[in-house]
């Protein structure tokens, strides 16, 4: 490996990795995200039981390392005897799915709006920018709650509600980057070469606005997971018996005093996941921001 590095200058990816791995927190975040993704994809194989399977003889069993625990259920069981670990593992699948759905939806819509506003300017810019301002003037969770209430409770509806809240952030970011790039020489050159508006926007300009968007998209995962869990907690997101982490929390509230584990573990899962995405986002920002390089 050393010889190779000496011979050729590092490619953009290798250079990026060189910066990224110097940030230990970011690498830790990446490792957690990869592990979670693995668990989420192979949930059916990894989880010891079906998340809905009820073991009536083992109700509210404490975690295995505590007196009265049973190693058959390492993290204990909930109020109707379902295995906590299996539910948390399937919850990871749901949370990452929500994150992916929200980030894809809001990125596509936000980038499209931002491109239109930034590229054409004028009336379309005013209209889009004003509309985004209106959305941003409401506290994010309140807007998500109202949208979720309109769409009705459910996992996908919660994801849509959170997307509505996040779209303005991507739109603003894209708009600002596009406006900065629009006047550059390479864009004028492409225009003179006869590139259509569509090509200019998507092929010429957009790749040069990608760095901040990648960072924002990573951080978007954490917002999405956090807000969707909050909606689930308020009863406006996924509904029981879905093993979504926020929903699990709200349905175990009454056992707060008797069985701390049914409340503690789902929240801990949310915290660790959100933290991992935030760590990774910070690392990406440092590695991709040209101003901080060298």
């Amino acid at each position, binding site marked *: 490996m050393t010889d190779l590095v000496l011979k050729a200058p590092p490619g953009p990816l290798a250079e990026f990795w060189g910066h990224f791995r110097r940030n230990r927190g970011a690498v830790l975040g990446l490792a957690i995200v990869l592990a979670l993704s693995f668990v989420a994809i192979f949930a059916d194989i990894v989880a010891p039981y079906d998340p809905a399977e009820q073991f009536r003889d083992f109700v509210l069993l404490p975690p295995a390392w505590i007196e009265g625990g049973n190693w058959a259920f390492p993290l204990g069981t909930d109020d109707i005897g379902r295995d906590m670990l299996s539910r948390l593992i399937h919850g990871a699948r749901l949370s990452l799915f929500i994150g992916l759905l929200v980030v894809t939806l809001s990125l596509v819509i936000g980038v499209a709006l931002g491109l239109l506003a930034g590229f054409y300017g004028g009336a379309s810019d005013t209209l889009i920018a004003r509309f985004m301002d209106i959305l941003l*003037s409401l506290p994010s969770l309140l807007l998500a709650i109202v949208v979720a209430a309109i769409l009705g409770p459910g996992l996908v509806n919660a994801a849509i509600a959170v997307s509505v809240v996040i779209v303005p952030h991507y739109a603003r970011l894209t708009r600002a980057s596009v406006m900065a790039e629009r006047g550059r020489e390479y864009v004028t050159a492409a225009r003179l070469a006869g590139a259509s508006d569509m090509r200019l926007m998507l092929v010429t300009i957009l790749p040069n606005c990608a760095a901040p968007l990648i960072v924002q998209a990573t951080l978007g995962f954490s917002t999405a997971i*956090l807000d969707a869990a909050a909606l689930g907690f308020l009863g406006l997101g996924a509904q029981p018996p879905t093993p979504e982490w*926020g929903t699990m929390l709200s349905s175990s509230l009454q056992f707060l005093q008797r069985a701390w584990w049914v409340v503690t573990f789902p*929240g801990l899962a949310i915290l660790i996941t959100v*933290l991992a995405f935030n760590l990774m986002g910070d690392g990406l920002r440092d590695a991709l921001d040209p101003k901080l390089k060298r």
Partner: protein
Amino acid sequence: MLKFIATRIALLIPTFLGVTLLAFFLIRLVPGDPIEVRLGERGIDPARLEEMRAQLGLNKPLLEQYADYLTGVMTGDLGKSLITQTPVLHEFAELFPATIELSLCAILFALIIGLPAGVLAAVKRGGPLDHGVMAASLTGYSMPIFWWGLLLILLFSVILGWTPVSGRLSAAYYVEPVTGFLLIDAWMSEEEGAFLDALHHLVLPSIVLGTIPLAVIARMTRSSMLEVLGEDYIRTARAKGLGLFRIVGLHALRNAMIPVVTVIGLQVGTLLAGAILTETIFAWPGIGKWLIESINRRDYPALQGGVLLVACVVMLVNLAVDLLYGLLNPRIRHAK
């Protein structure tokens, strides 16, 4: 300066109209008929139903309903709650002090811990203290506060029994609401011990609501402080042989505070959103809990009015921050 203020205020008008539109139409889309919800599932006489719809103006064309709504908003009439029949503005005004009180205590908590933590981290850059503060701040920023609240209740209320589980005041006390701010009312009242009891009830919710602002403030103070500490005038002060305390406290902090003040202003939205969750967990009788209850009861006017008023509060605070920032920084005031 006047022109700057006038432009900023003029810019608010389209946003305000947009918010009324949003509040009006979004909430019309909520499934379920408010009258049927109110009368329960029992079948009612269709003629009576029509009569009630007409009474509430629900049978007019949508656009006309919006025009009526806007006229009402302009004159301070946000309609009556379908459930309690009290004017929405009145209900909001009654509950809002509870939310302000909680939010102020939360931001106070965030400042008392966050500012020194950020300054210390910047001064001891790269040391274990810095790493500790940064790790704690990132954790706080990633915290699902509804779970954090439950954990604190479990520890301090259930296991240790130090703080009450919920509400603003124990049932043993009665304090006449004068200002709506329970701390002030309890202080003024004759009730012995009511003030301490109210304070007791405030501790946990304030910590929970203040956690995310605390993380943001600590982070912002650190980075702003690091920037200022690199400036020439700090080197000069150092060269003159001034003590670290004097340099940091007198020279650096004052300039480092400008971006921090802005960030504090921008936390208002976060606070109000967090208040929804915090108030739900602690059964705190403020507007957050009221909004969630309004959704569950399909109380359109209450929800509509609440959303509009919350948005107005956020807009006004942002305007105030904007103006304050312009006042502090002439470069912004004179920018085109």
